[in-house]
């Protein structure tokens, strides 16, 4: 019985020590905002909330409008041009490869935006008066997620150019009469 009691005390002690060290670690990993910066977040609370609310709405619209256009470039132009070339028994390897890369990146864009929107929504639910430091941390994560979305957009633009270069290459080959299988 005594052994069990001692064991219980040891387990409790270890639990307290471990959770305490984790708490300290979390604090150490915090953004290290100065009191002045925390106060700045508090004093700009309304403005920050407005910004993230506006951003949430404007980015949703942007996602719908531009996402639709990115999708249509793939389905209504690239796929159709590739299909037409193949149906004419011509080589379209470079074009198919370029359009596949574009599609993969388009899927990544969708995933990145989803992650970004979820993080932004969680920031919107936070209270900047009572949790200014935590809100700042989350907003920096949101910013990082948004820059990833932009990274995907930049890559999409680059891949649009790559596909266009492949079209020019195909045209040159076609003109030279080497496109026939």
């Amino acid at each position, binding site marked *: 019985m005594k052994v069990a009691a001692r064991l219980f005390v040891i387990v409790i002690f270890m639990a307290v020590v471990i959770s305490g060290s984790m708490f300290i670690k979390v604090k150490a990993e915090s953004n290290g905002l100065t009191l002045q910066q925390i106060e700045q977040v508090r004093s700009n609370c309304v403005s920050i909330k407005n910004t993230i609310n506006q*951003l949430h709405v404007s980015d949703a619209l942007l996602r719908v409008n531009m996402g639709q256009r990115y999708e249509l470039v793939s389905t209504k*132009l690239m796929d159709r041009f590739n299909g037409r070339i193949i149906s004419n028994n011509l080589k379209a390897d470079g074009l198919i490869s370029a359009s596949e890369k574009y599609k993969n990146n388009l899927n990544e864009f969708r995933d990145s935006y989803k992650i970004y929107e979820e993080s932004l929504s969680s920031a919107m639910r936070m209270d900047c008066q009572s949790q200014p430091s935590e809100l700042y941390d989350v907003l920096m994560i949101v910013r990082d997620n948004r820059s990833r979305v932009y990274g995907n957009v930049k890559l999409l633009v680059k891949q649009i150019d790559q596909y266009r270069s492949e079209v020019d290459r195909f045209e040159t080959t076609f003109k030279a009469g080497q496109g026939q299988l």
Partner: protein
Amino acid sequence: MDDNQMISEKKSFLDGRRFIILIIAALIISFILLLISLSLYNFSGAAQLDLSRPGYVEVRNKTVDSSSDFKNYPNYGAIDQAAIDEFKTLYDEQAQVIKVADAFKNDPLNPIELTTSPSPDTSF
């Protein structure tokens, strides 16, 4: 005799509550289907595209149906110089729109802008 009595008791239990059990079962099944559909709605990314949600009233009518100004390139027919030129014209037109938009380029969550500026520009 006892067995027969038990069977008749069981039957009478079901007979008396059959309608209630049916309603409860229907409610449970519909609740499970509701949970499945909600999780699909959230995890598929459809929620992010749904502007009918509360909070999007002001931008709901600003969505553009790109398919209306997007001319389909015919996926059949011979390939000749005219067909290639037609594709290039359509493609360049759309590529230009995408490049000009340069979506998500701005950085409204920049810490300096966020904590000092009263109303940062949130347009792209």
